[in-house]
């Protein structure tokens, strides 16, 4: 699309729609479900299932596509990033099914999320293990074919929405497992494990710095059996590092991250904006507002900080939208998505930490949500690709280096 910074009408309507949800449904619950870490935020979950899935109306035809999706995620995370992650949706598990599943699998696993009745259900993705985070190819959870069933064994940690997705019937967890360790990443496949499947056990929930309303689960798989038809994509194990087109295994799963990365970056922008909006509002009440035409010698330190923070946030937002806009045209955006995530994670970490500093004791106090947003912000530097991994991806791309040359 030609250079243009005006969101389409659909986006504007969507932003207003989700902002209202953030204000009315999320913010009033923020403090309680941050304090009460492992409680299910029933008011939010039920409201979202009954009223939130509908979405804003569409006006006209032309929209901003994935940019709009990012803008929506930003609004909801401006509301509460933890509650956002607790939403009853297919989430990353759904993205995996959408990316690698057959039409039949998509119908089987995703249709209940659009149903009119029924209760809230969740989807999740389980990849990380105690010894394997950034190095996703080193996972050890195994999948062995026995007759018409896959048998999974292993332990997954840091599974977002893992409690809901593993226990509430109708939901599912997409589990990465290897069918052949010797094949490295070529042996890694994704398996859909429906909620309640025997052999999948929720053994714990993390106690976290932030996003406490999100259920971050440890799941143990002990002879967990799923039907053969629950494998996403092809069962073929390719010994070569790069699969051919059509292999939906490891590469397809990693491609899911290229698609989700801009949205995660947008989530970070939402948290950063929450902090910045509050900071500007409270400073305004004290008669402090940034002047954009102040003489350099007259500019206060606070003004300088405010200008820098706003610039950093907008930079993160524009990089995110650029990566998202590329998805609208189906253009590979591995570099741009990683740039966006790297920048957003770092920028909002700094913005929220600086905001607490600038507000002094008030920023530090639990009377305001600002300290919570600082805690919520930090995860964006880490999950869905750490800061360092994203820097590594960017570095490889700009240097045109394969992974063997730059570790």
């Amino acid at each position, binding site marked *: 699309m030609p250079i243009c910074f005006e969101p389409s009408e659909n986006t504007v309507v969507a932003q207003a729609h989700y902002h209202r949800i953030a204000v009315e449904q999320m913010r009033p619950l923020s403090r309680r479900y941050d304090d009460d870490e492992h409680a299910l935020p029933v008011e939010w979950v039920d409201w979202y299932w009954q009223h939130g899935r509908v979405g804003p109306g569409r006006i006209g035809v032309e929209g901003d596509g994935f940019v709009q999706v990012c803008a929506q995620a930003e609004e909801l995370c401006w509301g509460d990033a933890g509650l956002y992650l607790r939403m009853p949706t297919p989430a990353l598990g759904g993205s995996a099914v959408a990316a690698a599943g057959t039409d039949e699998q998509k119908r089987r696993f995703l249709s209940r999320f659009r149903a009119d009745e029924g209760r809230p259900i969740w989807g999740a993705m389980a990849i990380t293990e105690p010894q394997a985070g950034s190095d996703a190819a080193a996972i050890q959870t195994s999948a062995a074919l026995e007759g018409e069933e896959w048998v999974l064994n292993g332990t997954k940690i840091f599974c977002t929405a893992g409690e809901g997705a593993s226990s509430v019937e109708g939901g599912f967890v997409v589990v990465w497992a290897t069918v052949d360790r010797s094949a490295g990443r070529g042996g890694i496949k994704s398996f859909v494990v429906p909620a309640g499947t025997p052999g999948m056990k929720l053994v714990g929930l993390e106690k976290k710095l932030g996003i406490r309303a999100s259920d971050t689960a440890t799941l143990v798989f002990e002879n967990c059996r799923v039907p053969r038809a629950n494998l996403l994509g092809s069962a073929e194990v390719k010994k070569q590092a790069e699969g051919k087109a059509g292999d939906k295994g490891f590469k397809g799963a990693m491609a899911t991250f290229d698609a989700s990365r801009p949205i995660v970056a947008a989530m970070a922008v939402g948290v950063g904006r929450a902090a910045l909006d509050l900071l500007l509002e409270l400073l305004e009440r004290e008669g402090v507002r940034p002047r*954009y035409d102040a003489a350099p010698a007259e500019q206060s330190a606070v003004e300088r900080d405010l*200008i820098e923070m*706003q610039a950093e946030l907008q930079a993160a937002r524009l990089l995110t939208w650029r990566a998202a806009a590329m998805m609208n045209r189906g253009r590979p955006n591995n570099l741009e998505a990683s740039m966006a995530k790297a*920048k957003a994670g770092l920028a909002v970490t700094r913005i929220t930490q600086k905001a607490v500093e600038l507000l002094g004791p008030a920023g530090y106090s639990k009377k305001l949500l600002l300290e919570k947003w600082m805690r919520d912000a930090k995860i964006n530097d880490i999950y869905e690709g750490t800061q360092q991994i994203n*820097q590594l991806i960017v570095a490889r791309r*700009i240097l045109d280096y394969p992974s063997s040359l*730059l*570790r």
Partner: protein
Amino acid sequence: MIGFDPDDEQQLIIDTVRQFASAQIRPRARDCDEAGKLPEEVLSQAHELGLVANALPEDCGGSGARSAVTGCLVAEELAWGDLSIAVAVLSPALVAFPLLDCGSAAQRAERLPRYAERRFRPGALAVVEPEFRRDAFRPATEALRRGQDFELSGRKCLVPWLEGDDVVVVSASCEGRAELFLVPRDARGLAAARERNLGLQALPTAELELRSVRVPASARLAGESGSDLAALVTRGRVALSALGVGVARAAFELARDYAKQRETFGAPIATRQSIAFKLADMAIEIDAARLLTWEAAWRLDQGLPALREATLALQQVRRIALEVCDGALQVFGGHGYTREYLPELLLRNARGLAVCEALALV
């Protein structure tokens, strides 16, 4: 609809200017900096590309294609070649655009066509003042009314001062209002002294001293809304941002290419995380700064207020241009410190972005 892709025409402009910068500008950057002189023939050739003239109205000899976004695309490519030469090439805008935006019909008719003529005619703009308490929006330089005339007194610096034109646009405060004046370069009471600066050495710049310089009422840019210094400074910030992105990109590419071939301990230094991550951070910051610049430029083209966005963009560019140039010098190691390689030149030039308040070149 949100979009980030230059259209076909803009891409053609980018390609053309990039090719020109690569072939004609970049190879001369070092020698011109050492000599403190601009390459005249390059300025003439660049003028033929019509980069500034195209933005002028058709009845003045231009194409009426004024776009801050396109201006930023051009500025980035030129600055990628060399910042001093870029400013020189675009300098006609320093007079032409204030005339276009703030001049009366008579002022425009009289002067604008000169910047679309065959001969390259540089421009001069005096808005930066040397005092510590300088304020681009509220100049200390004063314009006192003397009957129908004005009397200007004050000091200006970092004024691009190329031979080939006879006026300089000067900002001054008159009865509390910021105004712009077309002052003849040879006016009585106006003294120009060539500056020597840390960077931008190939670009002749002057420090001006105005002592009761008398100009007629017709010298004041007095279109329908009169002088709008704030708008000019806003545009100037956008232009500086675009130039800075170009300088930063030049530094980054040099560092990247050097790191891929320079070996230590048996492998290119680009394979070391400390270098690779440094380069990655540079690339991210450059892309981010460019998008902020484009947003401010786009707002200018839409007639929207753009001071905030221009300020955000310039704040980032000032920081990252320096960090990238410094980082590039670092990647070059000892060689980076010598004048055999470009990073030190880029660093010295990049620092100029922080002290130049506004160069309204887009």
